[in-house]
């Protein structure tokens, strides 16, 4: 976990002159004010991404370590994520009204508006982790240190977290190749989720008294799996932004073919 902590803290700063700015030529407008406005949007989105990543991380740790205090913090901070969504939305609306952006600038605004919806939903899923963590911490599950479902959940969580971190870096760099790699690997997260589900169903059949807690772990796994899906969406927006191709609801082969066109 400390691993990804070090990366995400640097997300905003490290890329201050990033692929995002250079690849999209954000600093090349005749209007310097417009350059600044787009740069501001970039900064805000990266900050929101950083916050959401932290929330997912904390939510997961709260579940795994039965940390009620951390869980409460996650639930509380979800409000910050929501506020950022509203702020960025408003900023984008202003740019649409005042600048009437076209081509890559237009694609930037459209993808940012969509990206922050996905980020906000990830925030909600993180808060779900928090709420389930509180209930799990009061149950017996947490005492079963090293129980199979929690170990699996930990794997899934770390995987989802790492993917989210990679996606945010890809976003900061507008790195299409990295985005494609993440889209391709979403299947692995889905498989991991299926494995946990199977495991928990077995557990519930063996020990009906554990159904309540098993369900809570299932919901946590489900939340993580959803975060994985939203992460994939972020990557699809990267492709749209850079290539101008809308690749939602396409297979990885279709996406690659669309880019080659």
């Amino acid at each position: 976990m400390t691993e990804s902590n070090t990366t995400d803290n640097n997300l905003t700063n490290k890329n201050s002159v990033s692929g995002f700015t250079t690849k999209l030529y954000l600093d090349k407008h005749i209007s310097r004010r417009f350059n600044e406005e787009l740069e501001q949007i970039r900064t805000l989105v990266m900050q929101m991404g950083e916050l959401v990543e932290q929330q997912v991380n904390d939510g997961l740790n709260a579940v795994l370590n039965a940390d009620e205090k951390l869980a409460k913090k996650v639930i509380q901070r979800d409000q910050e994520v929501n506020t950022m969504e509203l702020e960025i939305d408003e900023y984008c609306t202003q740019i649409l009204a005042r600048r009437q952006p076209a081509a890559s600038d237009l694609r930037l605004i459209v993808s940012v508006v969509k990206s922050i919806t996905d980020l906000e939903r990830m925030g909600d899923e993180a808060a779900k982790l928090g709420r389930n963590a509180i209930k799990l911490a009061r149950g017996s599950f947490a005492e079963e240190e090293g129980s199979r479902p929690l170990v699996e959940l930990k794997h899934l969580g770390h995987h989802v977290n790492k993917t989210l971190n990679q996606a945010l870096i890809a976003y900061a760099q507008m790195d299409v190749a990295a985005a494609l790699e993440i889209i391709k690997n979403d299947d692995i997260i889905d498989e991991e989720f299926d494995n946990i589900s199977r495991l928990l169903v077995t557990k519930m059949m063996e020990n009906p008294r554990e159904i309540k807690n098993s369900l809570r772990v299932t919901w946590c796994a489900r939340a993580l799996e959803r975060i994985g899906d939203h992460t994939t969406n972020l990557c699809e927006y990267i492709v749209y932004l850079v290539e101008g191709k809308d690749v939602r609801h396409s297979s990885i082969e279709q996406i690659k073919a669309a880019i080659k066109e």
Partner: protein
Amino acid sequence: MNIQDEEITQTVGNIYADNAKMSIRSADVFYGDKQAIHNVSLDLAKNQVTALIGPSGCGKSTFLRCLNRMNDTIDICRVTGQLMLDGEDIYAKELDPVLLRARVGMVFQKPNPFPKSIYDNVAYGARIHGLTNNKAELDEVVETSLQKAGLFDEVKDRLKEPGTGLSGGQQQRLCIARTIAVSPEVILMDEPASALDPIATAIIEELIDELKEKYTIAIVTHSMQQAARVSQHTAYFHLGKLVEMGKTEDIFTRPSHKLTENYITGRFG
């Protein structure tokens, strides 16, 4: 690579129309020794609006004026290449440019009504081309032309008053009525709304949208938003070359050429 240095070797996108009213192939235009247009080829799709955009001095107006031989009046101007209207060479020796201009009408940036009455402004072309046989027919042409130009209701009670007394937007619609009165097939518009306020501009744009049902339209505009609003095809000119042409919906969301992108997003280049 410096994007400004990128060379324009070939037009990107699609210059062809399924149903071309005018087809231009390898057009070059010279003013004396200076070449203003370099090897431009494109189609104007029938009953559609084609917008020509580009920075000042890119040759878009020069190109537009070739389409009804307005450049003939400039002695040092020389046009080469194939410029066809319905498959007919418009620069053919036997072709009368006056008749060509009746088929390919033009509306200019500044409204330029004649110092005559509203009625006479519209009737002028029909009279000199002898398109009508009597007063009743001429009245009919004037009324329908004014109606098509969306001006009739505003001026029906003062047809005898001078056209120059109208507002800028009305004058421009009067000029459009004058163009329509000789039943052209193509209407060329050189920044028809750049001297008008937003309301008058919106009315002209609405009119363009209606006019395309009957006429093929090419419009030069400095307003990218206007090009995006009124046209189905957009051609981007730069330094006398046609850089990119394509469907307007594509040009304004995902242009292929960096120069087009730079221009429509207001970047250096």
